[in-house]
């Protein structure tokens, strides 16, 4: 049996997390494949709708990365994100999906290593969950 390689979508905010990803890249840190990074201006511009759409289309896991609380380029953008994503996770649970398929974390521009760690951890965790059951569901 071939090992399951999950497809992951990672939304990274422009000011911190994307810069963190950049640093990880420049530092030549090993990164798992199948992670698609989407650069957004702020984690708050990741509408929950995008996350839920991705999950219902069969993406195995969605990672939302923003600046640490207090460091948001837009002052309180990541406060919004911090309030919203847990609701998304609960809805996944209520529908019958594992809430661990969505994760929110904070990565600053200086945290290249943390970026790598967050990604690797998340990929491992989603791999353990197995494929998104919605991938096989056609409406």
């Amino acid at each position: 049996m071939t090992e399951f390689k999950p497809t992951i979508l990672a939304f990274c905010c422009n000011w911190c997390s994307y810069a963190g990803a950049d640093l990880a890249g420049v530092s030549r840190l090993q990164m798992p494949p199948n992670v698609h990074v989407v650069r957004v201006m702020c984690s708050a511009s990741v509408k929950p709708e995008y996350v839920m759409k991705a999950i219902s289309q069969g993406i195995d896991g969605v990672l939302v990365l923003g600046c640490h609380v207090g460091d948001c380029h837009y002052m309180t953008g990541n406060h919004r994100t911090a309030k919203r994503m847990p609701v998304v996770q609960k809805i996944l649970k209520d529908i019958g999906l594992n809430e661990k398929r969505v994760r929110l974390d904070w990565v600053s521009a200086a945290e290249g290593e943390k970026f790598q760690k967050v990604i690797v951890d998340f990929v491992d965790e989603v791999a353990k969950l197995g494929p998104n059951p919605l991938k096989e569901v056609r409406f």
Partner: protein
Amino acid sequence: MREEHGNVGPVMISKGEDPGDVRTDVPYQLITILSNLYPWMTDGKKIAVVTRKCDEKALAEFFKRGYFARDRVIQIGLACNREQIRQCRCSDPVPSVVDIGEPHGGLDTDALSEKLMAMSSEERLRFWEYQFRKCNKCFACTTNCPVCFCDECVLEERTFVPERGVPPGMSFHMIRAYHLSDKCIECGECERSCPAGIPLLTLRKLVARDFKEMYGFSPGDEKTVSPLLTTLEGESLDGDECDEC
């Protein structure tokens, strides 16, 4: 509501007019009907509406956002009877002021909610998958919802809900569940008006329970601000609602 033509339907009675055979036992969603009429009300006019507890909560959501002026809507409190409470699986049926009816307590538990949460997640997913497969995209759940008041509905945005596609799939219902998480007052109108018989009220109840556990917040109170609109410290965020909807 009034009985006419062998049916019971909503009716607007002007001052001095004979109200006729008025009925309060058919669950019309009068706040939705009022929200259609409100923009047409001429200056200074007031309107009275029969309000159950859920309607009272819905009005609070309107007042909170400044969509209705508080002094223009007069509430006639209706306490639902036991049968109505049972049908709506209502946990909170007594309005703050009872003008009509005898107050009766609500139900503590919702059987289907309990059953669903006792299932394995695979079973639960299969359950909802079957339910959502019946969806015919009639938008009854949004059209009849008293607290669906965005000017532009995200469910009509192609990015999130492509045109045509029937049934519209999982994301339609997840997105709607999210949007109602800090507004839904559990009147059950979505479920009653769903031609596919999807237990939408149960989904609302599940999300409401989580929301309350996380943030200690339940919609329907004019004084509290939705946690989705405050900072982590609870301070109010600037900007209007539609930043997030």
